[in-house]
């Protein structure tokens, strides 16, 4: 117990142990959703309870934690979660992707290539990739058991027939290790290729549905597609107005009330680092 009256990392040891067991099985069966029976956590679900539960079960005093929300380190949500862990676990925090050992994220993968020795923890609002197509949980379980993902292929094919391309710009379904259909959480489809054979360990926590899943390092993560309609990650066709990047994922921001707007990197650490390097070079 710390002086604040919290157990280290906030969760009690029984809950952590239960989540840890689920994490080990999740890593052993890449892409498979493992339920965990934790009691209600005293946080509202929109806050990223699943991600927090995973981070709290993994984190130790030697870690350096980064938290991003839609790519940004400075949103209210990201700042609160970072402060929360600094307080209950006494861990160091950082905004630098390169320096972090654990990165908890909502809706983005950092632009800077992740490395071994890092863990990426995703906050997942809905872990079941089939839920819009098949609302019956028992039925989706059966489909995963049989690797019967015809329903998803039909949906993607209908998209192509109707729009000429797959009309999914985020939460684009992936196949993990050639076996399990997985929701990448609502990251932009642009980020999907970063998951493939990533050297870092990827852990996913869904608080409301109480599911954990994982992608081990160097594991194949393939966005579903068709031979004649290969997966194409979409990016706004513009350079970042602040750092000039032509590779990063961009957010469109309004600059005034006259309809003026510009494109800037969604990843604030990446953009700031590039701007600093640019200034140093000048």
């Amino acid at each position, binding site marked *: 117990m710390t002086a604040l009256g919290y157990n280290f990392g906030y969760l009690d040891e029984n809950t952590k142990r239960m989540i*840890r067991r689920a994490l080990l099985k999740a*890593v052993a069966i890449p892409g*498979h959703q493992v339920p965990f029976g934790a009691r209600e956590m005293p946080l509202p679900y929109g806050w990223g309870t699943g991600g927090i539960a995973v981070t709290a079960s*993994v984190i130790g005093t030697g870690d350096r934690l980064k938290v991003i929300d839609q790519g940004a380190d400075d949103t209210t949500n990201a700042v609160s979660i970072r402060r929360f862990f600094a307080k209950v676990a006494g861990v160091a925090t950082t905004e630098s992707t390169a320096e972090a050992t654990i990165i908890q994220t909502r809706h983005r993968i950092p632009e800077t290539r992740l490395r071994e020795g890092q863990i990426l923890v995703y906050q997942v609002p809905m872990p079941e990739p089939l839920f819009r197509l098949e609302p019956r949980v028992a039925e989706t379980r059966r489909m995963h058991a049989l690797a019967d993902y015809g329903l998803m292929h039909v949906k993607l094919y209908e998209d192509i027939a109707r729009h000429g391309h797959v009309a999914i710009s985020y939460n684009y379904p992936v196949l993990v290790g050639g076996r399990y259909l997985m929701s990448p959480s609502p990251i932009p489809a642009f980020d999907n290729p970063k998951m493939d054979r990533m050297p870092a360990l990827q852990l996913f926590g869904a608080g409301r549905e109480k599911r954990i899943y994982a992608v081990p390092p160097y594991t194949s993560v393939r966005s579903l597609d068709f031979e004649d309609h290969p997966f194409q990650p979409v990016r706004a066709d513009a350079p970042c107005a602040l750092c000039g990047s032509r590779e990063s994922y961009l957010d469109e921001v309004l600059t005034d009330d006259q309809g003026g707007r510009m494109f800037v990197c969604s990843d604030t650490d990446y953009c700031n680092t590039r701007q600093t390097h640019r200034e140093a070079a000048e």
Partner: protein
Amino acid sequence: MTPLDSMPLTPGFADPVADAQSCFRALLEAMARPGRVQRLAALPEAPAPLSPAAAAALLTMADAETPVWTDAGPAAEAWLRFHAGCPLVARPGEAAFLLASGPMPPLAALAAGTEEEPHRSATLVLQVAALEEEEAWRLSGPGIENSHPLRVEGLPDSFLPDWAANATRFPRGVDLVLCAGPRLVALPRTTRIEEAG
């Protein structure tokens, strides 16, 4: 009264919260990167014949919700019951965790989960004579960039065919944690093993 009641219990983790966390990270790293030897920093004083790494792994993972099977004898059983609070079962097939210090229990006899719930499967913590990252085996699969070398001493001759049979049941299957002294290596069910030529 059995003599057990008068047997003094050796301590578990010195700092239960911090030690369980660091041991879990080693286990997570081991499971995520099969074949890489993890050396545990915080070890309990486990009674013989338990190896410190195997005892630490059990303290980290097992509790009242997880039936444990072990062949390590009464002192080890009393220690596990006291420090982990886990129920002990007589049949290997009923255990969530198995701690084997003697002959390896047959993988086919352990809980392998179901097609829908492959995570309801056993983790076998097996004490071996030695673990080295040397080319006797070549490991591949999730968690391994290309291939990874591993040499394990003290496994039965039937191990490789049994391991190959375990893989054919995927996603069902048993996961393995091999322990020697303060070191451990994990082999999740997805790891393929080839003998290095």
